[in-house]
């Protein structure tokens, strides 16, 4: 190695450099290449415009060709918005939203309350993992919705049946995700704590647990989305209130507009919870550098 003095090159003043325009292909079609911020916003808005545009067009076409029944089966976006308002004001749809949200929250919290601790234990202790892993892995492949008839037999049509469905749907997935997260905590991180004088217990709660938290919150966020699916299925099968039962009744009255409005409501609720999780994540774990989602 020689110690040559660093070459000193005067930077070219940027104004003097001709501004190079990068070609369309190079800007937008290079894999993993970041695109300009403005383009990102335009694309995001554009996707909504596109979806609603296609939808409006489709509705207009169908309603034109069949003026009598067209609006019944393929309502336009505007008609759906009007229906949604009508549902809220005249049909107490918010009541159904409330019931569904209650079931989701209850089932999800009960599932997470067991799945997260158990998953962490399974990820850190081989004894616990060897005991619980085989049955959980098997049950995971049994669709939660297939349990609905059985649970109706056992629990009836009340709230506990709905909550159990969500619990089954969330628990078995979440516990394995958390186990995996715990299992991935690097050994070095724990070892270094031991060599700093930490006891097993200190390593567990001061190193192991905090190391898993950010990803556990991510796992909760993902499984929350699945919880909605299971709930709606349960409500579609049999329920007195809830978005799912509202959809079922709307179907009997041939109200496609109400069904669509209800489905969109679920989507918005999902987006809302997802944002909530993202905010919690950002506030609780400021040290995690996340790729822009």
């Amino acid at each position, binding site marked *: *190695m020689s110690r040559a003095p660093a070459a000193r090159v005067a930077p070219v003043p940027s104004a003097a450099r001709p501004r190079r325009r990068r070609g369309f292909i190079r800007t937008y079609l290079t894999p993993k290449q970041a695109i300009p911020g403005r383009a990102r916003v335009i694309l995001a808005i554009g996707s909504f415009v596109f979806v609603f545009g296609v939808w409006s067009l489709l509705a207009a076409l169908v309603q034109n060709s069949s003026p009598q029944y067209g609006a019944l089966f393929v309502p336009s976006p505007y008609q759906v918005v009007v229906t949604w308002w009508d549902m809220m004001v005249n049909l107490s749809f918010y009541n159904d939203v409330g019931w569904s949200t209650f079931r989701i929250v209850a089932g999800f919290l009960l599932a997470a309350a067991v799945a997260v601790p158990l998953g962490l234990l399974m990820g850190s202790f081989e004894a616990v993992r060897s005991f619980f892993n085989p049955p959980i892995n098997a049950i995971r492949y049994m669709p939660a919705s297939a349990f609905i008839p059985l649970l109706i037999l056992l629990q009836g049509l009340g709230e506990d049946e709905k909550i159990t469905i969500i619990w089954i749907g969330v628990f078995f997935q979440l516990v394995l995700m958390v186990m995996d997260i715990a299992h991935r905590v690097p050994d*070095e991180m724990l*070892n*270094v704590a031991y*060599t700093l*004088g930490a006891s097993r217990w200190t390593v567990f709660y001061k*190193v192991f647990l905090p*190391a898993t*938290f950010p990803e556990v919150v991510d796992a909760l966020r993902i499984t929350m989305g699945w919880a909605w699916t299971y709930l709606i299925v349960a409500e579609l099968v049999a329920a007195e209130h809830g978005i799912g039962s509202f959809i079922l009744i709307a179907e009997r009255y041939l109200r496609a507009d109400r069904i669509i409005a209800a489905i969109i409501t679920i989507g918005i609720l999902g987006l809302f919870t997802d944002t909530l999780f993202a905010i919690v994540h950002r506030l609780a774990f400021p040290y995690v550098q996340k790729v822009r989602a």
Partner: protein
Amino acid sequence: MSEIQIADVAMRFRTRHGEVRALERISLTVPDGQFACIVGPSGCGKSTLLMIAAGLVTPTEGEVLVNGKPTLEPGADRGMVFQSYSLFPWLSVRRNIEFGPEIKKAPPPERRKTSSELIRLMRLDGFADAYPNALSGGMKQRAAIARALANDPEVLLMDEPFGALDAQTRQIMQELLTDIWQRYRKTVLFVTHDIEEAIFLGDVIYVMTSRPGRIRTTLRVDIPRPRTFDTLTGPRFTELRNQVVGIIHEESLKAVESELVRA
């Protein structure tokens, strides 16, 4: 007085293909204030040896003694610096450095004094409140070394701490480490596969054989301290390097050959 002694340590693993002898009867003593380096071909078990020294792995035979007392578990007397993943990402640099003292329940003002001094010495000024994610690779390792030193261990065990850094950063880190070592005079056991690094840093170099790892040669590095960048171009440095390169090359060949025989 802080000395670490590895006494007749042997390590065997049981695998599906039978027993693998990783380490065979290794004995060495690092006396108080000595900087000892272990070099060897990859796969010779030098990292395993360091894990054993730290108490993180139990050897099949033999024991590790600190100041003459056998050790059974890892502890604050043997601080360790790993190649990677070792800083706690949820703690600021300062909190990382204060981790050991905090466990020992040192009073906060004292902790703060220790961490401030090490932050200055390790040239991490301005990054005390930064999270590890915001640091470069070299800074991360400086913080990791600072954290180990903050605990004031009897022995410092370092497992290729600069192995993941680029050549320029590594050189700077080596210079910084010799400076720090001159200041604290810790007993150090340093594992590396980088021969020049071992000569630049060490008082003594243990050259290991390929698997099963044994100590093949012990070399005293008689280059005076303080060592600086110019040490690297000195005649004695080149001489020592050629000597070690020859041995390691021979051992690496053996390792490759034995792999071929097995295949």
